[in-house]
């Protein structure tokens, strides 16, 4: 969002710095509403197909790597925690803690992408990548492929969002290192924190949609 990097005076269209900060936050919330619609539309396709291909979706979902998916939820939830603590550190003027927490958040983001990549490799090895090496296993029928298409598109779009978030966090870390933020001015961090936690929320919903559809105990 557009927020001044240098001066502590509000931009001309705002009366006070506080109004500017709140407006920036509101802008991010509006953006989050659009993101909800974006991912919501994707999950709509899932919802309809799961409704009509109930059994095929359950079968296909049983072949996803639930352990890796759950580890990724844990990683992102933790990164959400470190992100909000980073914002608090900025608010309280603890510059060093701010920098460390931001870097930890970015590192967790990288971990997420790493685990996701490893999971993709596993998926490739078990021949479940549509249009690359998809194999109809026993019990699989064409709708099972629909599930896997959804899986790759949804996790792919989410990974793009995570990557953008990591980039933004690294930029903010650089600014934090140069001492840009102070208890009077940390609005960009707060806005970024909203985005990061929202990306985390998306993964929580995708996890629920993809992994635990009912699988036999092995």
């Amino acid at each position, binding site marked *: 969002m557009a927020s001044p990097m240098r001066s502590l005076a509000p931009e001309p269209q705002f009366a006070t710095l506080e109004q500017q900060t709140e407006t920036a936050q509101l802008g991010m919330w509006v953006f989050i509403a659009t993101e909800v619609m974006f991912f919501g539309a994707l999950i709509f396709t899932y919802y309809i197909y799961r409704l009509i291909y109930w059994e*095929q979706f359950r079968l296909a979902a049983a072949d996803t790597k639930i352990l890796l998916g759950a580890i990724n939820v844990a990683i992102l939830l933790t990164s959400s925690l470190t992100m909000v603590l980073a914002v608090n550190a900025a608010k309280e003027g603890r510059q060093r803690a701010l920098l460390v927490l931001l870097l930890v958040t970015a590192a967790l983001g990288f971990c997420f992408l790493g685990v996701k990549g490893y999971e993709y490799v596993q998926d490739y090895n078990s021949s479940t990548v549509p249009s690359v090496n998809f194999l109809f296993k026993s019990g699989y029928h064409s709708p099972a492929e629909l599930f896997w298409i959804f899986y790759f598109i949804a996790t792919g779009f989410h990974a793009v969002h995570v990557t953008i978030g990591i980039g933004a966090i690294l930029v903010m870390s650089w600014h934090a290192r140069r001492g840009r933020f102070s208890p009077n001015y940390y609005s960009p961090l707060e806005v970024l924190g909203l985005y990061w936690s929202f990306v985390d929320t998306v993964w929580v919903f995708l996890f629920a949609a993809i992994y635990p559809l009912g699988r036999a105990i092995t």
Partner: protein
Amino acid sequence: MQWLPFWPPDASNTAASIDKIFIGELSLSLVILCFVFGMMIVFGVRYRRNSAADRSNLVKKTWHWELTWTTGSLAVFLALFVWGANMYLWLYEPPRHPDLEIYVVAKQWMWKAEHPGGQREINEVHLPVDKVVRLLLTSEDVIHDFFVPAFRVKHDVLPGQYQTLWFKPTETGRFRLECAQYCGTQHAHMIGDIVVQSQADYARWLSQQGVHKSLAQQGEQLFRSFGCSGCHGANSTVHAPSLTGLYGRVVHLQDGTTTTADERYLRDCILLGASHIQVAGYPPIMPSFAGQIGEDDLMKLVAYIQSLSRQQQASP
């Protein structure tokens, strides 16, 4: 309405009904349009800038006026809705026992029609007058749309699904058949003729086509060559449901739900097999025939299974 230079011919029972509601709305629209334009002109002249008309006592409380035209239009709209919805349900709910069933397969860019007797035609459909006709429609590639302006009916034709449409031609003659859903380069040439003949002419036409096997008989042949009869046949030892009398019946599925065995159900059973549709009380051994049977042959199989029910009705 045929005397109007811009009125399409109406040649079916559906056309007359739809014309009626359209003319009703047209008249209503004209009244509203005259009212709005009339008011605009009257006010425009009377209250033009230089006129000396009285402008005191401007309406301050506007809400009762607004309430009037809100409730007024709502009432009119609801009436139109009920009239329309009622007719639509009649229009799009095909009769259970039509006089004639025609099987139509659309592909880029032609219409293929098959008569129950096995007669086939391309871009032309011969029909007898005054008989209730039901169409079973599907597409081999993209979405098409079966539209006969003279009958005022259309329905999209989707790949991978069966759609139905019905009407009763009331006039003999040649009527245009058009594809109404954009389907590619030659979309404008995906047209044909509906030839409505007197019942005697239609019977004569059918007999001149040199066809020896009815659609159901051709389907029976396929039934054997695809190996369906191995399990579903009368002498089979495999525990598979008998298909006699299946069409039109209610089927109980493994998951406790029920469904009617219509054309769509038969199609899905053949293509998806037991993994998808699991009939209660039978082992899940039905294989999937997806990718092995073309739409034409599928229609024949469906026609055969339908005929098994008709025979049963004929000899109870």
